[in-house]
């Protein structure tokens, strides 16, 4: 049925992984994107090499200011990790809405990032949390910001022979408020029409830290850094989000497709941002 045949490797160490990559295999994890693409003919591969059984690529490591998620860690494993609940609640909010239980049992955050879809929910959170990738090859490892790694829809700066070891996400400042809002035509198993992620830290009514990332409204996830910086030190006043919503419109370039029109995408992003106060949540205490 799949219409193409390929070799499939399941290395159990990173060493073996590198050997398969040097033979031209493509690194894969849960294959929830890869199999769909192969089946619909959007992707051709001679050989795939799965990171799923490599012990050193599993798990989550916590530091004081950051969390490192290894490449083979599934979404379900993230959701079951108690330590993430208060460190990165926005990540869990986003992950819990990805696909279905079956998809979350296989899919990975790194896979979502490499897939580089502007609708990627994990990718959006990685943008928001200043994600940094550890990319390795026979030559050694390098580190790249997620924002520099993604070049366009489905395009990333990954050279043949390279694989991603992990992604490190920064823990937002203590007491940050957060929101993750996804608009779609259906609550399950559907790609979102638009998505908004926000982190906000206030100090006595003054904005100390503000970050916003928007999905499905441009060729890649949008993170308007300049706009964010302009908000810092401002008083949190009525009308601020409205102004922000207006200005955001200059940063997005949505398109019409079968799921929604550009008009609708703009409109929902604008309204969600205007009413951010309704969506913002506090971090549950440990």
């Amino acid at each position: 049925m799949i219409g193409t045949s390929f070799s499939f490797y399941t290395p159990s160490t990173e060493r073996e992984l590198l050997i398969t990559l040097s033979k031209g295999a493509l690194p894969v994890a849960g294959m929830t994107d890869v199999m769909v693409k192969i089946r619909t003919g959007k992707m051709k591969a001679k050989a795939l090499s799965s990171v799923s059984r490599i012990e050193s690529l599993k798990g989550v490591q916590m530091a004081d200011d950051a969390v490192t998620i290894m490449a083979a860690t599934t979404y379900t494993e993230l959701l079951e990790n108690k330590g993430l609940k208060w460190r990165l609640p926005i990540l869990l909010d986003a992950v819990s809405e990805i696909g279905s239980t079956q998809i979350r049992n296989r899919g990975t955050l790194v896979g979502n990032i490499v897939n580089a879809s502007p609708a990627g929910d994990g990718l959006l959170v990685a943008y928001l949390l200043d994600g940094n990738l550890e990319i390795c090859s026979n030559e050694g490892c390098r580190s790249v910001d997620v924002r520099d790694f993604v070049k366009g829809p489905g395009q990333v700066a990954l050279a043949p022979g390279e694989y991603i070891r992990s992604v490190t996400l920064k823990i937002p400042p203590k007491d940050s408020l957060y929101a993750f809002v996804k608009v779609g035509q259906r609550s399950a198993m559907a790609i979102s029409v638009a998505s908004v992620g926000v982190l906000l830290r206030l100090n006595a009514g003054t904005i100390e830290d503000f970050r916003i990332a928007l999905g499905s409204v441009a060729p890649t996830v949008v993170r308007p850094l300049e706009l964010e910086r302009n908000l810092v030190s401002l008083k949190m006043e009525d009308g601020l989000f409205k102004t922000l919503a207006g200005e955001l419109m200059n940063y997005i370039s949505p398109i019409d497709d079968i799921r929604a029109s550009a008009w609708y995408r703009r409109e929902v992003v604008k309204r969600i941002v205007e009413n951010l106060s309704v969506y913002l949540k506090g971090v549950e205490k440990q």
Partner: protein
Amino acid sequence: MKLSTGGSVQTDIKGRISEPVERTFDVVGRPVKKIDSMGMILGEPVYTDDMAPSNVLIVKILRSPHAHAVIKRINKDKALKVPGVKLILTHEDVPRVPFTRAGQGYPEPSPYDTFLLDRKVRYVGDAVAIVAGETEEAVDEALRQIEVEYEVLEPVLDFEHAMDEGMPVIHDEPDIKGVYNPSRNIAAHYEMSVGDVEEVLKNCEIVVEGTYYYPRSQHVMMEPHAAFSYLDSNGRLVVVSSTQVPFHTRRILSRIFSIPIGKIRVIKPRIGGGFGAKQAMIVDAYIAAVTLKTGLPAKIVYTREEAFVNTYTRHLMRFTVRVGADRNGKIKAIDMKGLSDTGAYGDHALTTFMVAGSKTLPLYNKVEAVRFSGDVVYTNHPSAGAFRGYGAPQGLLALESVVDQLAYELGMDPVEIRKMNAIREGESSPIFKIMGEGREGVEQVVESCKLHECIEKGMEIIGWKEKWNKKRIEGSKVLGVGVSIAMQGSGIAKVDMASATIKMNDDGSFNLLVGATDLGTGSDTVLAQIAAETLGVDVEDIIVYSSDTDMTPFDTGAYASSTTYVSGNAVKKAAEEVKYQILEAAAEFFGEPMDNLHIEKKKVVSKSGKSVTFADLCTTLYYGSDQRQIAATASFVGEVSPPPFMASFAEVAVDTETGEVELRKFVSVADAGKALNPELALGQLYGATVQGLGATFNEELRFDSRGRPVNASLFTYKIPSRGDHYINNIECHLVDSYEPTGPYGAKSIAEIGIDTPAVTVLNAIYNAVGVRLNKVPVNPEELLKKMEEKK
């Protein structure tokens, strides 16, 4: 103990079996487990594809890439050279006999506009060639190697312009039959009226009007269409098929291949769902052609994409409804004008269109005048056909929206206006007589109608009084409630015929042979319950076999909500006759009059104190004295088609920022007569409700500007799943009711649940935000736009 003795079968003039006065039952009315469920759960080979012989030829179909084209030339030389390929058939190689795939009463009310293979293709996916080979790979390769030269024609894709002057003609072949007006792409036309609608409308104090669309959705039964065929040792053609209509399939095959019906046997194993998509001969003729040509077994199993495109869809329909009333809300006239898109072929075209009126208009039976009219047109889309609800969801969406409009225009409670105008027990409607399916209907008085009880119960569950007309706002969301009422039928009166054979075994068990076609509904179980109840035995004592045209007596098939009512009555009659024979034999055995005897726990017991078990009695009849087989066959045709009734309620929360609609609660309360198996009956109601909600929120088969399907896969066409937000917010109930003409009081329940979800949700959205959407699936973007415009 009920069912005392009752030596003879009591029937009234109409041939109906009269009921025992006492209505307490042993077997019916209980949630008996589905008798075939264990095998399915354990993964036993029960479905068509599981049973195909291993040496079977694989059959696939070459399909047209064009929506409308004429085949100029087909070259199969290269394809025939592919190793393993056995046979390739094109329109040049098969008999040219017009037929309809629709499995309906004979002669069918659908036009004969289809050929096994034709020179012309009429939708993207239409059949071009039949390829048979030893392996799937060989067949796939051959499909790629066949060279076809097409003359591409302009397609007709917009059903609202299909009848326009100068449009390309989809069916221009001279040998078709029964098409209303082929040159204008009109497959069927219908109009009827009672009273002078225009005149009554003119004199109404208020007239409201609205136009509504119901989409082309697909059944998405889990098991796709599948069949295999072979010649038996006597050279007869045997087809094992996942079908709702084995007898119609046999008749249609006989027509296409000009072979006598007696030389064909159609067997239906377990079916993994049909919902109407299998109320047709879809795949059987392809494999039959191969088996007849080669003498070899052949098999076809549709892919999911083929199940979407090459079987049936729901008819896309548009209805414009005008309702006239007085200031108090009394409805005086209804005018429904419709247009239906049957796609490339007219399967079920006229009948689904008529049902849009005949299974909705009697709800408002107190009108002075009523009219129903319109056309069913061809377009270059996949063929529409039978689909659960069969036109009623489409008609009801429009009618119940416009009745809702009327209520709001008058400032009335939408529930009140329905209560005031809706049909009640003991009443009738002229529609019953005028509109049948494809022909005149049958006059009937509604002997069981608990619609008003359904409304009351539903109101209570949803909290109508507390919620309707109260502005309720939660953040960016506005809440609202909506209502609608519905009816269906129970088989087609004087058309659907069912029969059953029961024979007794020497251990006191019984074989029940029915042509009725359990397609996953559990009808085998319900029919076993009816037989067990009548014979005074347990369900385990009834061995059901369905259906096999060689072994089981005739039944029109599983459709039109007919099995419990029509086939159930046939089973009851056969069981009554068997029971009579048992008592007669026991009377001889005891040397006592029959009046002395009654049946009690698998025994015949006499007032004199004597008793004999069924096993002993039958063993004696097999091997001892007066040797004979106790057995009976009985048939039943409904003199009427008692409608089940239902009221549905929805509560929605509309997000004014995104246009997203959250369904907080959906309630359907139905009068299905007595539920012979409440668990299975509720299962049907819940299932139909969920399927209706699928169409309300997501399901629509879409096409691009050249008529190519864009979402014919389960990845892109979303059916309801556990993850859908509303899945746990649904509540279904049955009210107490008893239909005197039904077997043990039963009416139907299989379809009605799908009629209301769309319109109920749209009515609730209106109540919340004052925007009336005129089509489903609900599109948040469109809703947001309309809320903007209203501001």
